[in-house]
């Protein structure tokens, strides 16, 4: 069955989630991945949205992080103070999902500004909850399409810290969470070795040449490079017919 690179990213992200985990969900591809996992191998996945919906079971694709469908039939609805202080800082979040305009070799993420902060080339939205998700979630999955512009060796601005920043490593900075453990792009998946992104699996139809052309540094490749599994017909049917029938994100 034919599929798009975006559909593959969603399926691969969904496969990372274990049944019963508590996931801090972002809008867009992370939302599709979490709801795909919930419909398949992880029916007890607990979806928490920064807007305050806990154990959400959205019957329609949420367009915004505060969609009313996240409230209807959820397990709890709480204030944003509760979300950030009790759930996130309280250590209740197993997995945080992040994306970004720029992601670097060390898993640092920029959603603030391209260019200089005081004289921005492009002003981006900013942190939202990303900075604290990066620091506090037990682990972080990153999902973003790959390009040389989006994957420089060093991001212009660290909104959400990965493994190595100008002010130190996660351990030296006493960050509670483990930080990014996997980056999923449209070409491959990357694990972190000594804080650095290392290509661990290559998607079908992608080549090492494609990967090297679209990263801003000479990337390390795992000794045993895996081949990413293509999406199954069932995964694709769920995404296309149930989760995103209007093809908003896929």
């Amino acid at each position, binding site marked *: 069955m034919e599929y798009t690179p975006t559909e593959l990213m969603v399926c691969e992200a969904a496969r990372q989630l274990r049944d019963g985990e508590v996931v801090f969900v972002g809008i867009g591809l992370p939302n599709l991945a979490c709801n795909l996992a919930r419909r398949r191998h992880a029916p007890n996945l607990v979806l928490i949205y*920064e807007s305050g*919906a806990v154990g959400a079971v959205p019957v329609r694709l949420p367009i915004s992080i505060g969609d009313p469908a996240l409230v209807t039939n959820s397990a709890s609805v709480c204030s944003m103070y509760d979300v*950030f202080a009790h759930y996130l800082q309280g250590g209740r979040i197993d997995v945080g999902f992040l994306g970004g305009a720029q992601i670097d070799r060390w898993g640092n993420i920029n959603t603030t500004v391209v260019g200089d902060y005081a004289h921005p080339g492009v002003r981006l939205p900013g942190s939202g909850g990303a900075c604290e998700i990066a620091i506090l979630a037990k682990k972080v999955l990153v999902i973003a399409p790959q390009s040389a512009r989006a994957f420089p060796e060093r991001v212009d601005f660290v909104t959400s810290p990965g493994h190595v920043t100008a002010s130190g490593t996660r351990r030296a900075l006493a960050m509670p969470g483990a930080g990014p453990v996997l980056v999923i792009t449209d070409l491959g998946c990357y694990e972190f070795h000594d804080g650095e992104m290392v290509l661990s699996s290559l998607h079908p139809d992608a080549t090492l040449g494609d990967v090297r052309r679209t990263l801003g540094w000479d990337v390390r490749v795992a000794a045993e490079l895996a081949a990413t599994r293509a999406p199954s017909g069932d995964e694709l049917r769920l995404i296309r017919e149930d989760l995103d029938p209007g093809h908003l994100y896929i």
Partner: protein
Amino acid sequence: MSDPRQGDKVMPMGEAVRRFVRDGQLVVIEGFTHLISFAAAHEIIRQGRRDLVLCRLTPDLVYDQMIAAGCARKVVFSWAGNPGAGPLYGFRRAVERAIPRAIEIEEYSHYGMVARFAAGAARLPFFPLRDYQGSDLPAVNPEIRSVTCPFTGERLAAVPAIHPDVAIVHVQRADRLGNAHVWGLMGVQKEAAFAARAVVVVAEEIVAEEVIRADPNRTLIPGLVVDAVVEEPFGCHPSYAQGYYDRDNAFYVQWRDISKDAASLNAWLDEWVYGVASRAEYVTKMGARLANLRAREQCCGPVNYGF
């Protein structure tokens, strides 16, 4: 002299804005995606307020419109995008090209903003949090600092309390004293209201005090912190009110094109803000578009408050 916070506080929006929103003030219109008072924002634009410091987590279309109308000198925020639909062009034009005027920005993350409201509400000078280490945000915002815990010796991030001159919050229903029921997403409205020097509650409907008292657990904001109560049905559109009407997602997408250049954004303000005298006129002018957003019914069972 009687306490002005006692008794009937119901007034029209025009009067609430005249009395409680002044040039140069720190103004908060809260509501995270849900319950954003566009009705209040439009009245502030119509009354020509200037040099406001606008503070909220997500400036959203509501501050994009106020910035474009020239109301703001500074924006304090944590995520400035059009949720689900792209950038905020009005905000970006002001930041990048000083159109219609230069604005200052002061930027946090969501938790930092939530913590500022929590400190303000509790009249503490700051709030400690485990955040910001390794991020460049403290380097561009000197208000993000750190403290050493006197008990454990840990270094923690600290953000200062915020005390808005006025907080404006939309609610589903309130009584004439300002006791306000909210359900669905609650954002930081309670903290914002308690942190503020004055509070304007805008309600989809004003109900009898007995309706509020029958379900006191649902009262997010008590009348004792409220200065004004305004009734504005559909007062959040294109934001939404759970159980009343859905978010107008199509409008948020349309705003991308409307706001892309200053001329078309200004033309929209001319027609939909300056071109109507009140929210009621806006609602009439929107017509069937709003009727189509009406929420379907999904009521919960009653609880027993007896003893």
